[in-house]
């Protein structure tokens, strides 16, 4: 016998955020591909990356990229899991694993980006 389960957690916010982050990621991904894969002079060497990372705006874009991609990807995964009828314990376990994974990977990425040193004489790198 069907019984409707009401919920305070509507899903509307996560739906809106999924769309906004999706749109932002299209722009960021395009920039990423053009810069990292299609422009011959961008370079992937340690020096080239270090040079790019001297610009704070570049770091900010990277941080934004990582945060949005993590949210979008894991929220999308959660959406797929949520399409199945899950026992409450399983639902809580899955969301916990996803949140822990999201926080851990984002923190890891932040740590890497913040640990790249600012070099005083940028001319040495160029």
């Amino acid at each position, binding site marked *: *016998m*069907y*019984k*409707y*389960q*009401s*919920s305070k*957690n*509507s*899903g*509307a*916010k*996560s*739906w*809106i955020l999924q769309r906004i982050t999706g749109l932002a990621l299209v722009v960021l991904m395009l920039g990423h591909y053009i810069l990292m894969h299609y422009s011959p002079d961008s370079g992937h060497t340690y020096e080239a990356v270090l040079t790019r990372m001297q610009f704070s705006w570049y770091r900010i874009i990277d941080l934004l990229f990582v945060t949005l991609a993590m949210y979008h990807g894991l929220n999308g995964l959660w*959406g797929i899991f*949520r*399409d*199945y*009828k899950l026992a409450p314990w399983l639902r809580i376990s899955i969301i916990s694993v996803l949140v822990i994974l999201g926080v851990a990977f984002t923190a890891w990425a932040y740590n890497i980006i913040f640990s790249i040193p600012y070099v005083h004489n940028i001319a040495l790198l160029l």
Partner: protein
Amino acid sequence: MKVTLSILRFDPEKDEKPYRKDYEIDVDPSFRILDCLDKVKWDIDGGLAYRRSCSHGICGSDAMMINGKNMLACQVLVHDFKNKYIKIDPIPSLPIIKDLIVDMESFFAKYDVVKPYLIAKSQPPAKERYQSIEDRAVIDEAVNCILCGACSASCPSLWTNDSYLGPAAMLKAYRFVFDSRDDAANERLDVVDSPDGLWRCHTIFNCVEVCPKEINITWHLSQLKKKCAMREF
């Protein structure tokens, strides 16, 4: 013309599991599939069970899966099918009561949850609650639903999660949320704006493909999604 109907049969009192049975009949190409079923029942096998009432696409009782697609048996003709071996199954995802008859209990329970009736909080006028032509146009398509269940039974989101409200119930929510005479939009939005409601619709469009009334259900659900999203600001 000879046609073979391959019908999924199941009598829970006798059979362990459903099985297919083929019936070869002589029909006119202008026969509807419902006429073919009548012919089988009246001339060959009186035990065959299926629902039908109006025979003219109005009551919505004879939705079934014909050659893999949900449709009304009274709305399709034999000459619509190239291959004259026609497979007929009950609409999926609902428990079979017998042969092509499914248990619509949960379908109507979900329908009930969205409060499928006008809730007007103002004093009733002397004659009737008027609606302008423009206001009515907003719900023109949605009011055409005949509750056949073809859409909900075709939705993969419902196949994987039987708690999902499904397209038919939410289309009914649209019909009242966007009705200029109704005052309970928020109550209905609270129901559809839930994890087993609107957000399980992934715009797959199966419902639109099968709706015998050609209602663009997905578009209507999108309008509800927008309305729910607007409530967040």
